[in-house]
């Protein structure tokens, strides 16, 4: 028997488990975090600290009837939640959790993640449209305009990183930042990139929050305006999949930010194996995203788009030019 | 001149004969007051005031007499305008009554013909009042429907005006004041909703609080629970 087949399968199982655990328990973490920000307890009945709450929720969601309202586009309505979940899951394949924990190292892994993210957006668009609900359609339209607007500065910022490291392979980008935090792209000393890279980081982080539809940019499911946006008509596991997809997107977004700017799995001082540093970094980022959500009110769709088109895109373009200049000069 | 008196004179425009009588009474009262005040200080321009009052343009004829003279004039003008209370002897005549604020909570109480409500609203609109509420009262025994308009000021000068009119119960129709006060729209719809009072010229006289298919007017006295 050829053993090479087992490696991908084991990795598949491993990453599925990682993704599943994250998708489920980030919900718990979010609720717990929100609760403590709001001076209350949050889930605490099911298991210690309410840790089994996600299981209870999962069982509840799975045993609920999948309601398909009349007037919906049946097939698309069913496919959309799955389609929202799959790309985020697939993105896990190329993410280097440490120097040797990575399912597949692909040269184009940065592009792959963006390519997959656009499928996620398509899923939301289809789900919103298929619901046949006006709120869902408005939400779908918002998702698209928002995603397109924020993908541009995001990609431009990524290009600066690609220019600095000379590779579109996430593993290579992570490797280029090894050996202490002053090698991380955000504070990169050599080449003097630290002068402007924190701006790039800010742009990228804002974009990643917007791309994952998180508050204060959660225009798609702005509950006070659009009830639940594209998820309005979804119940049971359709809703569950959308939620899990959302959390997975956050994880992927945090992973990307970590790899691109915060040194990936690189340890800042040189102790602890890489995987731990990677996890610590992504969870700090995820916590920040949760923290922002429960602190700020929501912006408004046109202000959001203006932010991207009028501020982030020009800034990221200037950033790109400055990077090119720095690379040439230093 | 205080705001109540000013508004009263403005509202008397609705009733020309009363206005004339009132102007006369006020001129007399002012003359008396001026006589009394002459010893203290010369009072200016009563002539203009009376003239203006007769034409009902009290605001344009600015120079107001001293406050005490207006105060002094009040009892006489009250008597001249109309009777004080709508209660007591017989049906009340059209006119502007100065209400007993402490007792009833309104400063001026106007009773007019249904056709005059728009004119009244225009006068009050000019004077800077806002519409507080419109409602009806069903006087079953008298077979009449009373429509009550509450006006108030928001500029700090206290003056509550209530304009009331009576319409036959069988045919509860009167002109709408939505053209003067867009805010009256919903109040009129509410009155229609509860009493079946039809406001002619209202842009959208439909049920507002009750379901659109309701076939009753709940605040009519012959609608029993």
């Amino acid at each position, binding site marked *: 028997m050829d053993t090479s087949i087992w490696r991908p399968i084991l990795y598949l199982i491993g990453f599925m488990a990682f993704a599943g655990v994250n998708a489920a328990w980030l919900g718990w973490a979010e609720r717990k975090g929100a609760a403590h920000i709001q001076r209350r307890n949050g889930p605490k009945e099911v298991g210690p600290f309410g840790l089994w709450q996600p299981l209870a929720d999962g069982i509840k969601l799975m045993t609920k009837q999948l309601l398909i309202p009349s007037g919906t586009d049946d097939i698309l309505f069913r496919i959309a939640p799955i389609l929202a979940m799959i790309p985020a899951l697939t993105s896990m394949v190329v993410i280097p959790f440490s120097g040797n924990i990575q399912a597949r190292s692909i040269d184009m892994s940065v592009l792959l993640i963006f390519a997959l993210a656009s499928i996620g957006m398509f899923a939301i668009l289809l789900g919103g449209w298929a619901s046949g609900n006006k709120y869902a359609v408005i939400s779908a*339209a918002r998702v698209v305009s928002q995603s397109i607007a924020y993908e541009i500065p995001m990609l431009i910022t990524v290009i600066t990183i690609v220019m600095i490291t000379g590779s579109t392979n996430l593993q290579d980008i992570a490797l280029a930042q090894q050996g202490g935090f002053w090698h991380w792209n955000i504070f990169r000393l050599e080449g003097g990139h630290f002068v402007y890279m924190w701006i790039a980081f800010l742009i990228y982080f804002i974009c990643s929050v917007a791309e994952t539809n998180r508050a204060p940019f959660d225009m798609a499911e702005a*509950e006070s305006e659009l009830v639940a946006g594209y998820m309005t008509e979804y119940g049971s596991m359709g809703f569950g999949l959308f939620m899990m997809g959302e959390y997975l997107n956050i994880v992927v977004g945090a992973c990307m930010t970590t790899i691109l700017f915060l040194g990936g799995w690189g340890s800042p001082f040189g102790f602890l194996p890489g995987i731990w540093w990677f996890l610590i970094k992504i969870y700090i980022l995820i916590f920040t995203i949760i923290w922002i959500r429960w602190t700020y009110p929501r912006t408004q769709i046109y202000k959001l788009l203006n932010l991207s088109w009028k501020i982030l895109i020009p800034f990221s373009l200037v950033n790109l030019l400055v990077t090119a200049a720095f690379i040439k000069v230093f | 001149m205080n705001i109540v008196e000013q508004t009263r004179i403005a509202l008397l425009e609705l009733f020309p004969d009363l206005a004339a009588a009132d102007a006369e009474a006020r001129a007399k009262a002012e003359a008396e007051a001026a006589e009394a005040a002459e010893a203290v200080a010369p009072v200016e321009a009563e002539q203009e005031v009376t003239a203006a009052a007769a034409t009902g343009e009290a605001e344009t004829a600015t120079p107001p007499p001293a406050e005490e003279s207006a105060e002094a004039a009040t009892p006489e003008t009250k008597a001249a305008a109309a009777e004080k209370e709508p209660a007591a002897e017989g049906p009340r005549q059209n006119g502007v009554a100065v209400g007993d604020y402490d007792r*009833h*909570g309104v400063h001026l109480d106007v009773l007019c013909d249904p056709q005059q409500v728009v004119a009244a609203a225009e006068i009050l609109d000019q004077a800077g009042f806002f519409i507080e509420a419109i409602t009806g009262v069903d006087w079953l025994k008298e077979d009449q429907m009373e429509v*009550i308009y*509450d006006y108030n000021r928001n500029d700090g000068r206290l003056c509550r005006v209530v304009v009331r009119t009576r319409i036959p119960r069988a045919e509860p129709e009167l002109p709408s004041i939505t053209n003067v006060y867009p805010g009256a729209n919903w109040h009129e719809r509410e009155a229609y909703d*509860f009493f079946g009072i039809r406001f002619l010229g209202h842009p959208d006289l439909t049920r507002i609080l009750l379901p659109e298919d309701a076939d009753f007017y709940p605040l009519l006295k012959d609608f029993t629970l």
Partner: protein
Amino acid sequence: MTAPIRCREDETFVLNLGPQHPATHGVLRVKLTMDGEYVVKAEPVLGYIHRMHEKMAEDRTFAQFMPNTARMDYLHALAYNHGYVLTVERAAGIEVPERAEYIRVITVELNRLTSHLLWWAAFLLDLGGFSPLLYAFDDREQILDLLERVTGSRLTYCYFRFGGVYNDIDDDFITGTRNFIKRLRSRLPRLYHDLVTKNIILIKRLKDIGFVSKEQCRKYGATGPLLRGSGVQFDIRKNEPYSVYPEFDFDIPVYDEGDCMARYMVRMDEIEQSMRIIEQALDKLPDGPVRAKVPKILKPAAGDYYAAVEAARGSFGCRLVCNGDKSPYRLKLRSPTFSNLSLFGEVAEGMLLADALAFMGSLDLVIPEIDR
């Protein structure tokens, strides 16, 4: 503000906002004709929680109607108690002991605080900020506990009686209230202003949104913070003083901008003013009875009586028509938000959906009070 895109009739669509919608805070329905994200036309549809209180009033004695008043504006129920009690006292010529007046003022102002805090919470929820809701509820809960001690209920109070109040306040209530005010004073600048009022997103969402002019307010009969946010200093407590309000030194916050931020600031300032009033009332609280001797069944003389109070949302007026009977011949309840909301259609035209909802939130709607 960007100018709305004018479009062909067939390019618009109708969006039913409510009767079940998170932003309408109750069962209000707004029929929005939308052009994309822009509101072309907004028509509020009322009546989903209409209970015909006015007919109920004609069917029961004056005292029996008391509980109904609390069920109109459940957030500032005591002001509605107060308005009704004032009208009937005026009609029946009842004198109220001074201590009772003070207690009325204290409880009404505490209740106003709960109302404003809840508005703040709900408004932030409309704007997508969830956490403030719980901060405000935390404080509000303290007031509700205090009020529960003296009134016996937490939301729909029936505490006032003709000629006084139902129950005297005790020392625990007084110290509790003082402690609460100290607590809220310390929390206001940090939790409320630093975290929320100064938040750039909030400012951007509220500034220059939902402009209401003075003239519009007058034409539509708007009162309360909506009117004061448009630069008109009008507050029944000052302009047409009732109860013992003239005894206290307090300001009427006025902002000239007429936008959502102005209304927001008016309410935030009113919280502080209410605290001032409560403190002064507690300091000056006289001894004495809390209830005058009043016959069980009132039969006011025939006539027409009107009284108004300043509720959290505007001036609440009662027009009472008596015919000498033991129940009102006609009781008209003038609720402030009914007038305030009637302005919504005109102002919301051409707004973005999100802004229209922010504007609606800034009106501070309590639907049962509109529908009565």
